């Protein structure tokens, strides 16, 4: 394998890792404030992909407008899922919350399956994302350049919200101690709903990128991607936004690069994320950017 080929694979890995990262941020933020493994997050990503598809195919919107529609729609869906399925259970045992999360996940998968069919639909990728561009001698589709740039941009927006705004301060405080946050006169429920909205918006972007890359959408597309992104969040250190991005990139790179070097391991591609996850948890249970859960968050 020559250098160009290697660099090519690195770019692919970066692009795939960015998608995992976008989805992993939502997992890590929800876990940070609620200690909930939100199993429905992958399905919100699927809904984001579908909204983009409907925006372009049914409403005839241009790609960028369809992305905005998907972001707003998924954010509203995420907030609604919190309002209906998680908010009534704030005081309940964690396991009940996990069951309603699985309930929301089953609901979204099956509702989309019943009403829109389980057959993958071709995603109308705009021509300007498929144009091949040359970049230091590497040929790659425009989307492989745009995905990491968009991810970096969204990540900086999220970090700005978390560390420079009052809402961000409330989110960090909430992750630290719910009881005290309530004493400070902050409406914890509103902040948690906001977290779901932010996470779901990022998942929608991830879903659309996914749909562009494998140009199709189908109701089950979020299951495995969601679990891998969750594994990425844990590998990076759950509760940490930077960790989620790092974990996503590591898992994306591993999947692409290992397959490129050892094609015979192709069948195990989907297991890498989980093998990584198990190894990390055995040797450094708090993840790479390990956050001690008794001390600080994000």
């Amino acid at each position, binding site marked *: 394998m020559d250098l160009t080929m290697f660099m090519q694979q690195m770019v692919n890995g970066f692009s795939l890792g960015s998608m995992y990262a976008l989805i992993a941020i939502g997992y890590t933020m929800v876990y940070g404030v609620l200690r909930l493994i939100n199993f429905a997050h992958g399905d919100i990503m699927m809904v984001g992909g579908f909204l983009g598809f409907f925006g372009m195919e049914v409403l005839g919107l241009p790609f960028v407008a369809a992305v905005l529609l998907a972001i707003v729609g998924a954010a509203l869906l995420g907030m609604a899922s919190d309002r209906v399925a998680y908010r009534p*259970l704030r005081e309940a045992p964690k396991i009940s919350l996990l069951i309603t999360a699985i309930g929301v996940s089953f609901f979204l998968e*099956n509702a989309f399956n019943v009403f829109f069919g389980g057959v993958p639909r071709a995603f109308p990728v705009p021509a300007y994302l498929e144009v091949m561009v040359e970049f230091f001698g590497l040929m790659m589709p425009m989307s492989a350049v745009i995905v990491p740039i968009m991810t970096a941009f969204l990540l900086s927006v999220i970090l700005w919200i978390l560390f420079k705004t009052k809402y961000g301060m409330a989110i960090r405080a909430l992750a630290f101690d719910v009881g005290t946050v309530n004493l400070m006169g902050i409406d914890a429920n509103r902040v948690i709903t906001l977290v779901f909205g932010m996470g779901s918006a990022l998942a929608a972007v991830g879903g659309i990128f996914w749909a562009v890359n494998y140009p199709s959408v189908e109701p089950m597309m979020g299951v495995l991607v969601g679990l891998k992104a969750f594994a990425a969040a844990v590998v990076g250190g759950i509760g940490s936004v930077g960790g989620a991005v790092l974990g996503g990139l590591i898992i994306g790179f591993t999947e692409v690069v290992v397959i490129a070097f050892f094609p015979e391991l192709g069948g195990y591609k989907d297991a890498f994320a989980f093998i990584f*996850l198990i190894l990390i948890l055995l040797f450094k249970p708090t993840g790479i950017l390990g956050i001690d859960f008794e001390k600080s968050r994000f």
Partner: protein
Amino acid sequence: MVSQVSFSLEPNGFVAIGAYVTALLLISPDAKSYQYAIADPYPFVMTLQSNFVVALLLSGFLAALLALVLSFPVFRVRGDYLAIVTLGFGFIIKILAINHPEVTNGSLGLNDIPEFSNLYWTGGLAIVAVVVVLNIVNSKFGRAMKAVRDDEDAAIAMGVNTFKAKTLAFCTSAFFEGVGGGLLAALLTSISPDLFDFFFTFQLLIIIVLGGLGSTTGAIIGTVLVMGGSEWMRFLDEPMNLFGYETTAMPGMRMVVFSLVLIFYYAFCS
């Protein structure tokens, strides 16, 4: 059967082991000789043969053995992390089944498994399982498990070997999950890796949480409620006459209703 607050999300893996072991032991050499389409089976696969009882016991023992091996890494972590690690192992077992067509026939799965399971076998073994589990729960080991369940740190302080208690609970549940997998294989007559997906584990999780975590009676009631309910709701998949509107058949509709019932039950009744 999850007897700790940390719950294992791995039953799909153990059920898969049991199902494959039973399937390989029961399928006749004749049927084996024509169904391996992806790769030629290993010679030992062709010679495996036993009767139903031995197959079920072996399924259980192999699942329990795997649980014993896995308990060393798994019980280094607690709580949510344990759930995640076991979820990962369950998934890896499925991937292994897909990638070893010499044994499992890959994603095509194994067919023509003799249909040994019937209500007497499954019901009878369920009763045996309940009796055995109740005996364990009421023994010295059971008291140690309960102590770990209620407060792990207190149990450690009292000198309970928590690792041993957890491993015993893990292996016992793996044994019955393996036997259950064997019964499942001999009931469905064909198995494939897709059967043992996350969905399978989540369904079991809903059952035990609905019945009450850590309760054997609860597990039985939960099974009757969830499985009975989802069979009863089959009419939702059929065409219906709703207030004069004829709806077409919508396969999957019952799962939509089932998940809504689940969400609203937990949101407003617990």
